């Protein structure tokens, strides 16, 4: 009984100390806030958070005397945030997938960039600035073929290797409803027609016919990427066509018996876009942020950890990345126009 009340007293004391400490910490940022640097709010992907916080935030906040708030979510959510606050935007920068950028352009939500406002734009690889400067790609993670290294002793030389009957029931591809599912369609159009990719990719009919040949070899068509990689690591699947380097190479580093190959027909860059929000706060800071992300200094820091290729031509390609692979840029406007039809056809023709 006595010990109980004793504990009660000390608890009250603890509470008091805690309260005053709490008030002190609450007050301190208040003082800081009084002389607060300007704030830049960025809407990006949840998966961007680690590298933004480690490599971009400290550097940028110091250089421009500002504060970055990073809201990590999904591209479509960022789009919604822009739509809902169109009259009074609070986001200054968005980092979203290219297909979603197209939707944002259509709704007039983005501010185009120029070389005057973003000087590093001039240093970018061809094909990385889209729709007259509406957005640019700051990195290119890539899609190639992931394979189990216990089963395949040499990397697949061609995407068509997956058609070999020895891989019966051993191949996985992403669903066409996933963004990463689209390149397979273009690659199969190329394999079917033998024409150069720039010409072949529009022949979707040929692609679907060629994909029929893949059906006996399919283990599954995934909509959840981690599941596909776990099947590959376990050896139930031997290859994933159109696998993401950011996922596959990370798993290899973690010790999984898988790696990525860049077959001779080439690989596809994954859309990592950045754009300035039209009418967003602190436009000067927004353009400065974009310029830094397109610059060699920041790109050399973030390309390695994200297993991506830099888009700035002055940035060295990180070790382990394909250096001489053909890179096919995806025509996202063509995708946006036709995707629903393709998904419909895919459902019917690829069904078990």
């Amino acid at each position, binding site marked *: 009984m006595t010990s109980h009340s004793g504990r009660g007293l000390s608890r009250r004391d603890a509470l008091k100390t805690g309260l005053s400490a709490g008030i002190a910490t609450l007050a301190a940022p208040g003082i800081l806030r009084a002389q607060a640097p300007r704030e830049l709010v960025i809407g990006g992907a949840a998966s961007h958070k680690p590298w933004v916080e480690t490599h971009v935030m400290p550097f940028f906040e110091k250089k421009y005397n500002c504060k970055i708030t990073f809201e990590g979510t999904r591209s479509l959510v960022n789009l919604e945030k822009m739509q809902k606050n169109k009259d009074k935007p609070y986001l200054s920068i968005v980092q979203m997938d290219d297909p979603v950028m197209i939707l944002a352009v259509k709704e007039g939500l983005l501010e185009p960039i120029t070389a005057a406002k973003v000087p590093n734009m001039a240093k970018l690889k061809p094909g990385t600035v889209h729709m007259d400067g509406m957005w640019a790609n700051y990195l290119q993670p890539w899609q190639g073929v992931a394979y189990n290294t216990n089963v395949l002793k040499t990397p697949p030389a061609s995407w068509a290797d997956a058609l070999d009957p020895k891989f019966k029931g051993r191949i996985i591809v992403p669903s066409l409803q996933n963004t990463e599912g689209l390149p397979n369609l273009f690659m199969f159009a190329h394999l079917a027609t033998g024409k150069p990719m720039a010409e072949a990719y529009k022949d979707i009919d040929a692609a679907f016919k060629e994909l029929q040949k893949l059906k006996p070899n399919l283990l599954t*068509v995934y909509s959840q990427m981690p599941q596909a990689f776990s099947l590959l690591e376990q050896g139930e699947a031997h290859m994933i066509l159109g696998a993401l380097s950011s996922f596959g190479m990370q798993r290899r580093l973690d010790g999984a018996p898988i790696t990525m190959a860049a077959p001779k027909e080439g690989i596809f860059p994954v859309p990592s876009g950045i754009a300035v929000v039209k009418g967003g706060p602190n436009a000067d800071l927004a353009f400065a942020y974009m310029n830094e992300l397109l610059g060699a200094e920041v790109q050399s820091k973030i390309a390695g950890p994200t297993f991506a290729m830099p888009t700035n031509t002055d940035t060295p390609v990180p070790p382990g990345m394909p250096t001489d692979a053909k890179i096919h840029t995806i025509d996202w406007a063509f995708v946006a126009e036709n995707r*629903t039809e393709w998904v419909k056809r895919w459902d019917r023709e690829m*069904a078990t």
Partner: protein
Amino acid sequence: MNSMAGKRVIWLAVPALAFLAIFYAAPLFYLLARSFVGPSGFTFGLFSAFLADAYNWRVIGNTLRIAMLVTLVCLVVGYPVALALARARGFAQVILLTAIILPLSVGVVVKAFAWQIVLRRDGAIARLLVSTGIWDEPQRLLFTEPGLVIGAANVFLPFMILPIYSVVKLIDPRLWEAGATLGASPLYRFRKIILPLTMPGIISGMAFVFSMSVSMFVIPSLLMGDRFQTLATLTGRSFLLMRNEALGSATAVVLLVLAVSIVVGSTWLSRRIGRSA
């Protein structure tokens, strides 16, 4: 006095009814309404377009076939377990009950991933079938319909066992003994005494399992993948990925109508059969 108390007791259902009205009936009504609205007002167009497409009939077929198979497997496997559970006493009953209820606390995603390991070509089932000589070499089970039925039946089994068990528990054991005294064979006693008396449990168990398996979303997407669409996966995709609310509402309503009419219809039918038996 008694009927007064009875009337007052009804108020106890108010919180649950209010909850259902706000979070179930209202969204359901919205969904129903949404599926009848086209660009120019009220229409059956969404449904006629949906049903005119042969592929969608295949999807409906997939949905119903899988749900019926899962229900059947659960019944065949679960019924004897329910009888055993009702007969078991003491420690054995505790073990049995725990074994049935504990798996409910494991999420569906975890179970689906576990089944992925079991159904692999080097998994336990394939090894067993090869070592017993039923298979010459390991075949693929993962991402096949039998694999899906096995996995889903595993998840829903408790919902078959528990309603049957609760009915079996109430059966007076002397009925069985009386039948034996009068010279009825065990099979005859089962058909004429146990089966009719457990019919209410069977009906509710089947209704539970069928409604859950006809609308399951996570299990088929993990155990079958994208190449096998059901009404539930088609609905999910329309809302989540294609942002086509109208199509999603239409598929959801088709699913709802099919599921409700099958559950209500089969319940009515089996009640009739139960009564005449």
